[in-house]
């Protein structure tokens, strides 16, 4: 079935054809039988089989042109490679501008080098290697029945000799012996972390902890936050750098005009129209960072759960199932906003034991 593709003839006018000694006329198809690749069947008697691949491409003049082009591309790749090394040595890193220059020079030269190699190799294969299409026979994947039977016999013999089948006591005790060892690695993972206990139910907020502005880390008086419509992120005093604490305790405060806040917002837990909600989304825990002043909606940027700020941060859209918990706040003796207790329910995403 095999055959060389189409142009199997040496063009009579090929001037570049070197006198290559006594060899067959290029492209003359050898007998089909010999050119069929028969898997790993032994060529009989170690005789040298006739050539299966033509030694040269059909069109030697085109091949010469292709050779020059490939060589040019490889030289380009070499120069680009030298350029890469030069750019590494010559261009420092250490600032944004320097890094951008360096990245451009290194990446550009590297791209050119690989492109030169890639195009060169492709043209080489396409225009310098002679076209071939060969056929290899496929053997059925399944073993011949006799081989299977022989294997089954060997397997059964071994099983008999091992006594594994005959002596169930040994078999069962062996299996019993390996079971605990198999479970042990899982047990070993136990100390990967502490048990959750009730830690997800609490935050570090408690009576008297000041609400600190997130960026400047300053306490807030209600009068400082007088313009309605804004949303400020606050964190508990003393936990500025404690990410574990902040991951649960991050809170937002929003100022409303008198009368805007309605149940289920707990009005006793607000100060002068300032209400505090957990900033940790009840969906999967992203910080709810967006506030739309006109609609008073708090929006989570991750999955767009939307909470109605003046009405107890109830869910108005999105995948979150529960409102943002409200933090009871009041003012301390110096007039700063403080928590009057921890959150009254667990903040953040749901968990199995939450209830």
């Amino acid at each position: 079935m095999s055959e060389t593709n189409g142009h199997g003839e040496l063009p009579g006018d090929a001037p570049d054809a070197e006198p290559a000694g006594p060899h067959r006329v290029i492209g003359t198809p050898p007998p089909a039988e010999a050119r069929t690749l028969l898997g790993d069947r032994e060529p009989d008697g170690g005789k040298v089989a006739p050539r299966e691949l033509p030694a040269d491409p059909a069109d030697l003049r085109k091949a010469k042109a292709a050779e020059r082009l490939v060589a040019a591309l490889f030289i380009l790749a070499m120069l680009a490679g030298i350029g890469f090394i030069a750019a590494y040595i010559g261009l420092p890193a250490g600032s944004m501008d320097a890094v951008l220059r360096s990245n451009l020079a290194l990446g550009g030269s590297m791209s050119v080098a690989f492109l030169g190699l890639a195009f060169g190799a492709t043209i080489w294969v396409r225009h310098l290697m002679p076209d071939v299409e060969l056929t290899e026979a496929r053997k059925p994947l399944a073993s011949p029945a006799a081989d299977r039977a022989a294997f089954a016999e060997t397997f059964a013999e071994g099983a008999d000799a091992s006594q594994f089948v005959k002596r169930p006591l040994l078999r069962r005790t062996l299996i019993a012996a390996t079971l605990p060892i198999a479970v042990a690695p899982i047990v070993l993972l136990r100390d990967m972390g502490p048990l959750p206990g009730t830690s997800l139910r609490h935050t570090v907020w408690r009576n008297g902890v000041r609400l600190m502005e997130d960026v400047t880390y300053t306490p807030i008086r209600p009068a400082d936050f007088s313009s309605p419509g804004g949303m400020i992120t606050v964190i508990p005093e003393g936990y500025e750098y404690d990410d574990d604490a902040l991951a649960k305790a991050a809170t937002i405060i929003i100022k409303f005009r008198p009368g805007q806040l309605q149940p289920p917002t707990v009005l006793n837990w607000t100060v002068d129209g300032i209400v505090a909600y957990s900033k940790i989304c009840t969906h999967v825990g992203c910080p709810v960072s967006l506030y739309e002043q006109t609609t008073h909606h708090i929006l989570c940027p991750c999955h767009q759960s939307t909470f109605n700020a003046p009405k107890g941060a109830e869910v108005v859209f999105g995948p979150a199932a529960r409102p943002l918990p409200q933090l009871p706040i009041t003012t301390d003796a110096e007039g700063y906003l403080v928590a009057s207790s921890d959150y009254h329910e667990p903040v953040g995403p749901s968990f199995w034991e939450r209830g």
Partner: protein
Amino acid sequence: MAIDRALEGVGGFLDDRFRGAKGFRTLFKKIFPDHWTFLLGEIALYSFIILLLTGTFLTFWFQPSMTQVVYHGSYTHLDGVRMSEAYASTLHISFDVRGGLLMRQIHHWAADLFMAAIFAHMLRIFFTGAYRKPREVNWLIGIVLLTLGMLEGLFGYSLPDDLLSGAGLRILEGVIQSIPVVGTYLAFFLFGGAFPGNDIIPRLYILHVLLIPGLILALITAHLFIMFHQKHTQMPGKGRTDQNVVGAPMYPYFMAKTGAFFFFTFAALALASTFAQINPVWLYGPYTPVAMSAGSQPDFYMGMLEGALRVMVPWEWNVAGHTFSFNVFVPALLPLGVIFTGAALWPFIEQWITGDKREHHVNDRPRNAPTRTAIGIAVITFYGVLWLEGANDVIADHLDIALYTTTRIAQVSMFVAPVVAYILTKRICLGLQRKDQHLIEHGVETGIIRQLPSGEFIEVTHPLSEEERAKLGSITPPPSLPAPDSADHNGIPAPGSHGAIGKVRARLNSILTESIEVTGSNGHGNGHGGPGTDGNGHAPGEHEHAAVPAGAVPAGAVPAGGSQEASLGAGEAGSSSDDGGGSGDGAGHDGSGDEDSGYRDSGYDGTDN
């Protein structure tokens, strides 16, 4: 000659010790079929190699530590900012290590290309039926590789500990916590306590640089060895059968081609990394659980999960003191879980429905398996809707659509669009099959109208080349199922054919094997298709243009008379049906009709059928 000397020297040295001459000869002569889609898997392989190389480079400087430091490095915008060592060392790699930024960007682009190539490769395998026996195991390995690739990517882009990746970890924590019964414990064990803790980055690091790449490497090796042992599939064409492989030998052809392709892959990644910035973590800032920026997106291969989380309705149950967060664990686990499980089981489901236990080495053209192709497109559509929903805020912003509207559209279209896609795809496939059938029977229209001596006008058509004919007629019909409740002569029903299950199977079979009878060079009887497949019914109707009984008239044939010419064409068609030895109704091969006139045709066909 230099080659002889090298063989004597190095080759002799090696063969004296390892006896490799015969094995390597076989290896060198191994035939590799060629088709552009076969390159998709190679892209994945080479991306992985590039990932290993660039990733190793990055580990020389990266510090997988969550210890807080104050940054005083080259990136002055973050001077004096507290951050983890992981983030600081990422800045160091980007701004102080020469070539560091380039390697980081190549690593990230290569990860995206790796996943994209795996997806494309997998779709190619599915749509061409290359997963069929004997390649089911490699298909399963592929699905595991895809899953591992997703995890590897997620863990990898979480390592720099920037604001975006930290948010991704927060979402991961929320999702794990939502798992009933064990979720809270799993989250605490993974994070070493409450989120974020100090352990997650070092733990993800060792998973990312050792465990998962090791598994991927091992599975890729198995994947390649199995492919190598079973030999590559081939696309249909002249001389290609299930008993052979047609192509070029590995040495030197495939070696050179694949070497070139490695360079192309590396060049593409280098170009992307030079000119297209990816994951500029210095712009996001270090992670803090307090802040989050708008427009956050995961890498594209996680987008579908993100979309599933966004599209879900807020269902949560509290039962007996326990919380079922359907709004989280259902979208996180169900859609992708169903797709992957379905994909894993599909080869076996298909085998059961069709009863086809034969080896397949010639691939299907997607149109020749209309139902399978339609199922595939439906799944892609479902995936695509959720994937787009994962970027709905960006879409809403750019297309000026209300944010919630995009989600509502997704909520509806995730159910409707796949059905529409299924129906459309199936119709398109059947239409393409009819076109192929027409081409096989009538050849290619030349646009030349010829008047016969008898005064009749015919359109001259050019017969297909043998290669085309072999390609178009490549359909291999499945064997027929035993009819429901049929029994052999001993009265024993064939397995899987009796009772309700037998009926379901027969019904599924008639849906899955719905196909036009494309009878080409390897023609076949069409008794198998079961009753009611389109093939039998329509072919005669389509067979002839009314009043223009052209047949496959060879261009340039001098018509001695209408009948002479037409019989040439009819002869071809007739012989192909004979090949199959089909006991079928010979639909489409009513060659005798062609000879005389188109009018008579239809009359005979009607009665024949």
